[in-house]
């Protein structure tokens, strides 16, 4: 089936299988591999995107459900050579190790700071509780969030 949606501000069309996730459509049909595919069950957060401005796991959205809706992926946050301030903070703080969880964490952090520009420690932990990182122990990631909030 064909879906039409706005992705990172651009009107896009994709031919998708009816049972396909938004994540698969973004990565395999729309050429946007920034959202990562790991658990496919909403546990790891590495496919986090904004759907109509709301933070969701793209693996749990049926691509067909995104028809007519607005999606922002990690690719839509900054531009080449002009990273989003949250992306800059992740680089600055050294919050990246293998990098696989980073796109999801960046999108989740952008969402957090949009709702709470000066988050408390508890707020940061809660906001990122759906994003797993198996490399870093999260300390540098929390540093990056605090840095981005400044």
């Amino acid at each position, binding site marked *: 089936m064909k879906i039409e949606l706005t992705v990172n501000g651009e009107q896009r069309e994709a031919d998708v*299988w009816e049972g396909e*996730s938004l994540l698969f459509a973004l990565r395999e049909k729309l050429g946007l591999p920034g959202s990562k595919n790991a658990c*496919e069950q909403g546990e790891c957060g590495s496919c986090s995107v904004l759907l109509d401005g*709301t933070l969701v796991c793209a*693996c749990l959205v049926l691509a*067909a*459900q995104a028809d007519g809706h607005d999606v922002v992926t990690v690719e839509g946050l900054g531009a080449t050579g002009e990273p989003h301030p949250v992306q800059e903070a992740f680089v600055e703080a050294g919050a990246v190790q293998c990098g696989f969880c980073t796109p999801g964490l960046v999108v989740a952090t952008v969402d957090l700071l949009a709702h709470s520009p000066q988050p408390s420690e508890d707020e940061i932990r809660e906001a990122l509780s759906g994003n797993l990182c198996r490399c870093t122990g999260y300390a540098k990631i929390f540093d990056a969030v605090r840095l981005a909030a400044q």
Partner: protein
Amino acid sequence: MEVLTPRSLDEALRLKSENPQAVPIAGGTDLMVAINFDRIRPNAVLNLNEVPELRGWSRANGTLRLGAGLTYAEAMREPLAGLLPALAEASRTVGSPQIRNRGTIGGNLGTSSPAGDALPPLLVAGADVVLASVRGERRVALGEFVVGPKRNALAEDELVTAVELEPASAAETFMKVGPRNAMVIAVVSLALRAGEELRAAFGSAGPVPILVRAPRDDADAFPERVAEAAAPIDDVRGTAAYRRHALRVLTRRALDRCLA
């Protein structure tokens, strides 16, 4: 596979009647996992995201009506959180922000898992589930709606459209045991409403969530009564003995919190 996307409740009910095998999908937090892992391959899914009648909540003559599409994130927000504090507490323990933004109360009811976090708080609130089809609307008490693990009273042409319940008139709370705070399926959960009557309901400690009631004066014996009412099993998340013990402890703590 076919995706049916109705734009109104009437259209949704007509499509469900014409395609009784169509599996409803809202937040996708249960169904998409099953589809992604190829555990099910439905002939058709009924996408309820575009049905405005299922969204939000309302209050008429004191009764609250929660649309089936109400998300956990919405249940956590004021003023609803103040009207149904245990449901708000339960919603805060669901998954992660991403899951709470998508998962719905109607989906929790439709799935009817013994571990469904919304079910115990809705049970202590005496909730009725509103079921609709082209044949009309009916109300079923939540305790009669869930009939077994992941089994419920929905007819094949029916959809869960709402839940109706009274706002909390007495102290109530929700507690959940799991290995960490986020992304946890309850090892055991408990909701308590402490009015003239004590009402407790638990999850993950039997095939269906169960409501246990006692006069307020029987508070001392209540933890034991709740533990005895459970029919837990040993599984990957915990043992039956642990679950019964934890229910006793949670009930004591919930009573301390609500009767303080």
